[in-house]
């Protein structure tokens, strides 16, 4: 297992480097700079600012500096949020996004697995068709439609839940954003579970168990072991995406997460903030893919490296 983890980490390093290099040079190629204001700064002040932030040096030197500080775990100062480093910003926003994301992930998994297996065990029946219909709707309705819809129905119409805001993580404020985040993924997981579990359920070893008179629960345990593999394989990117926040959901519900930093940072040419977000997302994708691989290896002996 340790060999597997080590190999995966080694494999992901070039990817990480490519991500960092690609976005670093893409940002710097873009017209405009972080200190462009409506009324231009006096040239002397501009020069000073550029020197303080090291923007006056050749691009390749700046890249080297960025890589070195990255190795020390330093993401640099934010250009637009003065007096704050990118790490400070993440320390504030990441708990919000991660709370929402992990709750949404759990909810999506619970709903998706439940209804997916329900549909698979009733292939062609009414439950199957209903789940299929709900899942295709869940996949097709984008979250920028569900979010305002939830706000107007549950927030304004029925007045059950607050329309937005974080309120220090008050559970009532979390319900609607978590639901909005979870629904499309629940639909995706349900479809995937239905398909893969359906294939496992018609295999000879399950038929044998049925013929031997095993209880439904025992059979379900055996079938899920194989049927869950494709779901686990998609969990890595999914978890990473959910944990790093969603621009749409955080904007609509007014939540102070990190999902908004990327678009805002890009619009403001906040080089370090954009880079920091990209690095964070890339690291998250790698870490969660690794976790997903480990879980998959635990479920399926064939995926374990032959020691």
């Amino acid at each position, binding site marked *: 297992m340790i060999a597997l983890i080590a190999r995966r980490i080694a494999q*992901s390093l*070039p*990817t990480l480097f*490519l*991500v960092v290099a*690609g*976005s670093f040079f*893409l*940002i710097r*190629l*873009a*017209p*405009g700079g972080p200190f462009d204001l409506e009324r231009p700064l006096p040239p002397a002040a501009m020069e000073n600012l550029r020197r303080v932030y090291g923007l006056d040096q050749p691009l390749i030197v700046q890249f080297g500096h960025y890589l070195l500080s990255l190795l020390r775990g330093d993401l640099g100062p934010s250009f637009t949020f003065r007096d704050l480093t990118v790490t400070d910003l993440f320390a504030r926003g990441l708990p919000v996004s991660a709370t929402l994301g992990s709750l949404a992930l759990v909810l999506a998994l619970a709903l998706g697995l439940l209804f997916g297996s329900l549909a698979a065990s009733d292939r062609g029946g009414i439950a199957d068709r209903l789940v299929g219909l709900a899942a*295709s*709707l869940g*996949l*097709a*309705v*984008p979250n*920028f*439609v569900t*979010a*305002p*819809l939830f*706000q*107007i129905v549950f927030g*304004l119409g029925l007045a059950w839940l607050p329309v937005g805001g974080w309120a220090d993580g008050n559970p009532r404020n979390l319900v609607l954003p978590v639901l909005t985040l979870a629904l499309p993924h629940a639909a995706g997981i349900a479809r995937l579970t239905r398909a893969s579990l359906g294939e496992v359920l018609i295999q000879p070893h399950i038929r044998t168990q049925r013929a031997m008179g095993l209880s439904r629960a025992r059979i379900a345990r055996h079938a899920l072991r194989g049927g869950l593999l494709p779901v686990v394989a998609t969990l890595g990117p999914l978890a990473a995406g959910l944990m790093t926040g969603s*621009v*749409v959901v955080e904007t*609509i519900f007014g939540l102070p997460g990190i999902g908004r930093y*990327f*678009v805002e940072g*890009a*619009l403001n040419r906040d080089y370090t903030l*954009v880079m920091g*977000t*990209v690095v964070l*997302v*890339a690291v998250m*994708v*790698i870490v969660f*893919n690794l976790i997903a691989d480990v879980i998959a290896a635990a479920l399926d002996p064939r995926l374990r490296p032959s020691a």
Partner: protein
Amino acid sequence: MSAALAGLARRRLARDRPALAALASLVLIALACLIGPSLTGHPPERIYPDVVRVAPGLAAHPRPDEVRPALQRLAFRMRVSLEEVVQYGDRVRLTLTAQKPIDLRAFRLLPRSGLFGEAAVRERSADGRRLVAEVPIRKRVFLLGTDALGRDLLSRCLAAGQVSLLIGLTAALAALLIGVAYGAVSGMAGGRVDALMMRLLDILYALPFVFFVIMLLVFFRAGLWLVLVAVAAVEWLDMARIVRTQTLSLKSRDFVRAAYALGLSTESVIARHIVPNTLGPIIAAATLLVPRVILLESFLSFLGLGVQEPATSWGVLIAEGSRAIESAPWMLAAPAGFLVVTLVALNRLGDGLGEALDPRL
């Protein structure tokens, strides 16, 4: 794809009622988007400033209670004051007064509002400061209501559909071409080249592509064409993988070996034998790609990074609608309805095609 498989697939698809329904609704939506805007009676960009945020329905506008306020606004712009308004049938009789002699050219504002016709002057006082005119009312029906500027929402949705569908189809086609070429070459080459090409694909898979798309759009003030390129650049990876797997399994088949034995070059084997035989899964995957592209485009447009006004897409309309949801919920419901029906239908059709074209069944 062999003729036999095509025939089999057609028969299988003909039995798949939901997939057929999906296909029918897609044809309907596409036709409506193409020719609909000229049939609704309202050009998509026509603004009716006096019927703003009208609810959907069959009622004709202006309703009797809307005539007076509309005329009041028009009279203000004509620099006259409205002394008396008498409605009978689909005509109104106006009595206008003003400080200075009334300039008849101001009456051009009436037909320009879209709700009234040409005015006919009936009486005019000697000093020209008092005037009685008869104006026909032009009744307008807004099936899906109007937006915050007074534009017909149905026409807007249909015109937006042209853009969304065009983006979906072209980007899917571009992704298809790149993916098929990459996958077929990688699978046919085999060995080191294949391993290298797949390793590159793995790296590309791990890149946060949406971030690059957003960066491109923000930094380089992208237009529609760049959105297309950016989206295609994200979406060809799956296609390449599918085609490569298919190619690998086809490569060692007898008919491919026979083609080589007959002296065909590798290029013509790829073009004549490999690609046609991978068409089934490719078609299914491409059909599933279109809704993903449309969704991505509408997400980008929702953020204000995609299609820019005055051009419009379903994502742009949904963004406008979600801002007006309290006062005019139909502004969100109408474009969202079009988008969701299209996506569901495309997904269902893709699934149906995938099953119908699966050679293993």
